[in-house]
C-alpha cells in the first residue's frame, strides 16, 4: 500500500513538474518579446533590452528555466510586470475566492445530481424522466455565460432579489454557484441515473426487497452506495471543468477569483501573472483529481486491491 502511495506521489510530482515546464516553454518560445507586450512594439530598443535585463529575460533559456523552477518551488511566482508587486499573495487571495465559489458550486452540483439521478432512475421511462433528460441536456448544452446571463436577468434585473455583480456577502454567491454547479449536476445526474438503474436490477436488491426492507432504505442505502461508485470517478474528472467553468462564470458575475485575475493578466499582457494562474489552476486540478482517486480506492474495496 505504501509503495502504491509513493508511486502515486511520484506521478503527481512528475505531472506538476511537466505542467510547469509546458507553461515556461509556452511563455518563452512563442513569437513576440514580452517587452513588446509591456512597453509597446514601437518602444526604443535600448529600453526593451533594459526591461528584459531587469526581469532576467535576457539570459540563456536554461538559466531562466532553472531559476523559474527554483522560485516556484519556494512559492515565488515573480512580480507583476506592470507594477512590480509580487504575484504570489495576489494569486493566493484570489484563489481563496475561487475555492469559495467552487466548493459551493460542488455542493449545488452534488445535491442536484442526486435528485436528477434518483428521480430519473426510479421513474425511468415515464414522462418525468423524459422531462429531466431534456432539462439535463439543456444544462449540458448551455454554456455558463448563457445560463448565467439568463439567471442574472431573471433574479437581479427582473425580480431584483439578488445583487447584480461583485462579492458582497453570501447573497452574491448564490447565482454563480448555482450556474456553475447545475452544469456539472446535469452530467453527473445522467450518469448516476444509468448506474442506479443497473444497480436496481441486481439480485441483491431483490433479496433486500424480499426481506421486507423499505423502498427508501433499499434505494437510499443498498443501491445508492454502489451506484455512486462510478460517479466518484466522474467527480475527479469534473474538478477541471469546475475550475475552467469558474473562469467564465467569474467573468459573468464579476466574481473576484482566480479566473478573473487570469483574464486581467491576459488583457494586461502580464505573462508572469498569467503563467502563475495557469500553474496554480493546473496543479490544483491534478491534486484534486488525485485526492478523488484516493477517495475512490477507500470507498471501493475492489479498487484498493489492484
Amino acid at each position: 500500500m505504501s509503495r502504491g502511495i509513493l508511486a502515486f506521489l511520484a506521478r503527481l510530482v512528475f505531472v506538476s513538474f511537466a505542467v510547469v515546464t509546458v507553461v515556461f516553454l509556452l511563455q518563452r518560445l512563442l513569437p513576440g518579446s514580452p517587452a513588446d507586450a509591456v512597453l509597446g512594439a514601437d518602444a526604443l530598443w535600448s529600453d526593451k533590452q533594459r526591461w528584459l535585463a531587469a526581469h532576467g529575460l535576457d539570459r540563456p533559456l536554461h538559466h531562466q528555466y532553472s531559476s523559474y523552477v527554483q522560485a516556484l518551488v519556494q512559492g515565488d511566482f515573480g512580480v507583476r510586470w506592470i507594477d512590480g508587486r509580487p504575484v504570489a499573495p495576489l494569486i493566493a487571495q484570489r484563489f481563496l475566492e475561487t475555492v469559495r465559489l467552487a466548493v459551493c458550486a460542488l455542493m449545488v452540483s452534488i445535491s442536484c445530481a442526486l435528485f436528477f439521478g434518483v428521480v430519473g432512475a426510479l421513474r425511468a421511462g415515464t414522462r418525468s424522466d423524459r422531462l429531466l433528460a431534456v432539462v439535463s441536456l439543456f444544462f449540458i448544452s448551455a454554456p455558463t455565460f448563457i445560463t448565467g446571463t439568463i439567471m442574472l436577468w431573471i433574479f437581479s434585473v427582473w425580480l431584483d432579489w439578488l445583487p447584480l455583480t461583485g462579492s458582497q456577502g453570501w447573497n452574491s454567491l448564490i447565482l454563480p454557484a448555482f450556474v456553475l454547479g447545475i452544469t456539472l449536476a446535469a452530467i453527473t445526474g445522467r450518469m448516476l441515473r444509468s448506474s442506479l438503474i443497473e444497480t436496481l436490477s441486481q439480485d441483491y436488491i431483490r433479496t433486500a426487497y424480499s426481506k421486507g426492507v423499505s423502498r427508501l432504505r433499499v434505494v437510499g442505502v443498498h443501491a445508492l452506495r454502489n451506484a455512486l461508485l462510478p460517479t466518484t470517478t466522474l467527480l475527479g474528472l469534473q474538478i477541471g471543468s469546475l475550475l475552467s467553468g469558474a473562469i467564465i462564470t467569474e467573468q459573468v458575475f464579476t466574481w473576484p477569483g482566480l479566473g478573473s485575475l487570469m483574464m486581467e493578466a491576459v488583457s494586461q499582457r502580464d505573462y508572469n501573472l498569467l503563467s502563475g494562474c495557469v500553474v496554480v489552476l493546473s496543479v490544483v486540478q491534478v491534486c484534486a483529481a488525485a485526492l478523488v482517486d484516493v477517495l475512490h480506492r477507500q470507498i471501493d474495496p475492489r479498487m484498493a486491491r489492484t
Partner: protein
Amino acid sequence: MTLFKNMRHALLRDTVTKLSMLVVVLWLCVALLPHALPELLPLDIDLPKTRMAPQWNLSEPSGWFGYDSVGTSVFYQVLSGAGVSLSVGLCTVLLSFAIGIPLGALAGSGRRYFDVLITRLMDILLSFPPLVLPIALTALLGGGFLNVVVALTVSGWIGSAKLVRAEFRALDKREFVEAARALGATPRRVMFVHMLPHAASSLLVHASFSLAGVILAEAGLSFLGLGLGDEHPSWGASLSEARAYLLESPHLAIFPSLALLSLVLALNFLAESLRASLDPKAGSA
C-alpha cells in the same frame, strides 16, 4: 456498410432526432450562405439605428432581431455567426482526429515505448483544466482563425486518441486480427484496415459530441475576448458585448444565445441518439 445503415436508422428514429437533424442542416446552409452570396448579409455600421428594438417588418429582415450598439443588424450578425462557429468547430474536430487517430493507433499498437510516451503526453495535457490551455495559448499567440483552431486542437486530440488506443488494445488478441497477421498483413494494414473500422462508430459519436464541445469552447473564448477578432461576428463575442446593455436592450443577448443553444442542443441530441443506436454497450441509457 452496416455503419451507414445504422446511422440512417439512428438519424430517422424519432421526432426529436429528426428535428435536431433539421436544425443542424439549416445552420450548415446558413453557414455556407455568406460564402455563396456575400452581399446577402451586410454587417454595416449604422449609428442612427443604435440598439433599436426588434421590429417584425416582413420587408426589412435586418430589423427582425433589432440592432446592436453600433447599429449593425443583429439578425445578420447571428446568421454570419453560424459560419464562424461551424468552421472553427469542423476544422478543430478534423484536425484533432487527424492527430488523435494516428497517435492513438501508435499507443495502442502494442509497442510499450510509444504507449508510455503518448500516455504521459496525454496525462500532462489533461492536467490543465479544459479551457485553461486554449485561453493561455490564444492570449500568447493572439486571436485569429488558425490560432483558435490550433489552441482548441492542442487538448482536443486526446479524446479520439484515447478511444482508438482503448479499441486497439481490446482488439489486439481477437481471432480476426490474429488471422490477418497470420495471412501476412503488415502491422499498418492490420491497424488501419482491420482494426480501425471497429472504432468507427464510437469515433463518429465522439465527433458529434466534440463538435458541440468545440463550438461551446469557441463561443467561450470569444466571450472572454480571445476569439477570432472583431472582423468575425462570433456569437460569444456578441453575447459579451450584450452584457453591458442587459437592462435596456435584452434582445442583444437573447438572439445570439438562442442561436448557440439551438445548434449545440441539436448536436448533442444527435450525438445522443447516434450513441444509443451505434454503440451496443450504451444500451438504453
